[in-house]
């Protein structure tokens, strides 16, 4: 949804970090994106390609690790991934807050993150 603005924040954040280390180039950027964010990875990659042009990030490799959502059930203690409805009508599996184990209601505890985890810079 807001891939362009978020990706532009990613690029600025990397540029700042590179400056701190007097880096001449950035080789790799590692992102972690939770599946419960609204970020489309294809759009992030596209925006990244546009935004790194004529910067020291040009030609850098963007690695994106997609992180599963995480929920907890107060009733049965289940902790783990969400239950998705994969009715073919939806085409994209639809997340639900129904406990995969006891069918109770779960709470979201993870999967909404979008972080830069690691960089490889060249001095």
């Amino acid at each position, binding site marked *: 949804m807001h891939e362009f603005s978020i990706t532009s924040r990613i690029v600025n954040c990397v540029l700042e970090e590179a400056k701190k280390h007097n880096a001449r180039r950035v080789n790799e950027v590692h992102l972690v994106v939770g599946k419960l964010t609204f970020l489309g990875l294809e759009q992030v990659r596209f925006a990244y390609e546009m935004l790194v042009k004529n910067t020291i990030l040009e030609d850098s490799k963007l690695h994106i690790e997609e992180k599963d959502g995480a929920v907890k059930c107060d009733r049965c203690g289940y902790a783990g991934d969400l239950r998705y409805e994969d009715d073919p009508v939806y085409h994209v599996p639809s997340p*639900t807050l129904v406990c995969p184990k006891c069918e109770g209601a779960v709470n979201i505890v993870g999967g909404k*993150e979008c972080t830069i985890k690691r960089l490889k810079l060249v001095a």
Partner: protein
Amino acid sequence: MKEVVKAEEGEVFDIELEADLLKANKELAEENRELLRKHGVAAIDIMGSIGAGKTSLIEKLVQLLKEKYRIAVFKGDLTTTIDAELIARHSVEVVPINTGKECHLDANLVRKALQEIDLNNLDLLFIENVGNLICPAEFPLGSEKRAVVISVTEGPYMVVKHPFIFIDADVVVINKADLAQAMKVDAKKLGTDVERINPNSKVAVTNCRSGEGVRKVVEALGL
């Protein structure tokens, strides 16, 4: 002191960091939440589709609750104060928020609006988000509860097509029940779609023109 350690030309640094790119809004939302909590104000984010009846719902809620609570309303829209004026007719404080181009409210805009009202003189705050079933879910504002309003005139698939916003909803309002028959849409089915996606949420079917069902929304919001 020892010599400064410097990288050789061409040396590769491998840097670990935990830069959270959605953090700016999350932190501001936490500040808003804390500020509201300190003043004992319950804030409710009213999200929903365009034209679903968010403003009509707020008007009816204000009418029902204004004797019981001191109420203020933030009214988010891209432009105009048309809806804000509708709510202001009910003699409650209204702060219009015009986002200009943005398709959702964010914690920063809410923080600015909070500076416009006297929190010491307030119990309940409704924050009407920009009409949109996608983006607002990603931007917490610092509210205590989140409600989503849809209506039967949008067709029978509004819930299954937008699962993410319903996952974030404490209360879901299905409005324009009086038009269900004409639209050949089953409001109850929309409700079961919500329960299937988010069993934590409470569903109320309403007609916000007549006020039918609005008391159920009050109950669901715990007011």
